């Protein structure tokens, strides 16, 4: 009975969260096929560890933390050098320009994503979580392991860097 309930819960999470998590992962790894792989790994891990989640009100940051870890692991495996305070921007930007499922007609959107990809990985993660997914700084701090204050600072610095990048490349 418990197994059936767990199975249904994982299925419900897939139904409700596969789309927002896909886009979050896509913003991190850029390529569609890669995002699909990481999304799959994410939900497998969700299914394996779902019984460890005690507070269901925390399901959203919990899911995003798993997705973040899977995306970062993928980035470490597939790009030259990625750490939380540096970036592997060049290869990701290359993927941005060449991926089959990237629309290059709107150059401002391309430039914006390029600017985001030049951010250090931690800063980029925080920016994406706040700007696109509108998570609270508290949730972001739990997901990334940073303090709330550091998350706020990183977000504002990220916006400034993106602004400068776009203005200098237009």
């Amino acid at each position, binding site marked *: 009975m418990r197994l059936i309930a767990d*199975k249904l819960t*994982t*299925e419900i999470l*897939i*139904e409700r969260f*596969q*789309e927002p998590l*896909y*886009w979050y992962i*896509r*913003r991190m790894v*850029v390529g*569609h096929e890669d995002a*699909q792989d990481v*999304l*799959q790994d994410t*939900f*497998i891990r969700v*299914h*394996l560890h779902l019984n460890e989640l005690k507070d269901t009100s925390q399901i959203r940051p919990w899911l995003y933390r798993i997705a973040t870890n899977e995306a970062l692991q993928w980035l470490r495996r597939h790009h030259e050098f990625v750490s939380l305070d540096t970036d592997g921007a060049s290869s990701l930007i290359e993927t*941005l320009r060449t*991926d089959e*499922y*990237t*629309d*290059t007609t*709107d150059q*401002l*959107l*391309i430039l*914006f*994503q390029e600017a985001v990809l030049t951010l250090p990985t931690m800063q980029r993660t925080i920016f994406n979580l706040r*700007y*696109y997914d509108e998570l609270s700084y508290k949730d972001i701090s739990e997901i990334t392991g940073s303090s709330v204050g550091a998350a706020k600072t990183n977000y504002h610095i990220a*916006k400034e860097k*993106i*602004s400068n990048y*776009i*203005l200098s490349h237009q």
Partner: protein
Amino acid sequence: MKNNQHIFDFDKVGKRLPYNVPDGFFDNSEQRLKTKVNAKQHTIKWHYVAVATVAVLIGLAAVIRLSYPKPENTNTIVYGSTEQQNNEWTDFAEADIFMENMNW
């Protein structure tokens, strides 16, 4: 007065992305994910079965070994397991030969 000329207007982009997905991707993705998750669950179950089977076999082997002790070797005295025992038999044999020769 704040100079906005050096600040990018994020409203020009909003949350729009240059990324798209194949038609029907999310409809197919949902079923594909559920299938993958269930397949992974079955794989893990079979791993548990394999580990449990090996553990049972090891335990069974240990029980069998303890239940049937190694039989005692009755040829130990004749063939000897120590050098001292070997020398005792040799000395005895040599003594026997000399006793026979004394009857020439």
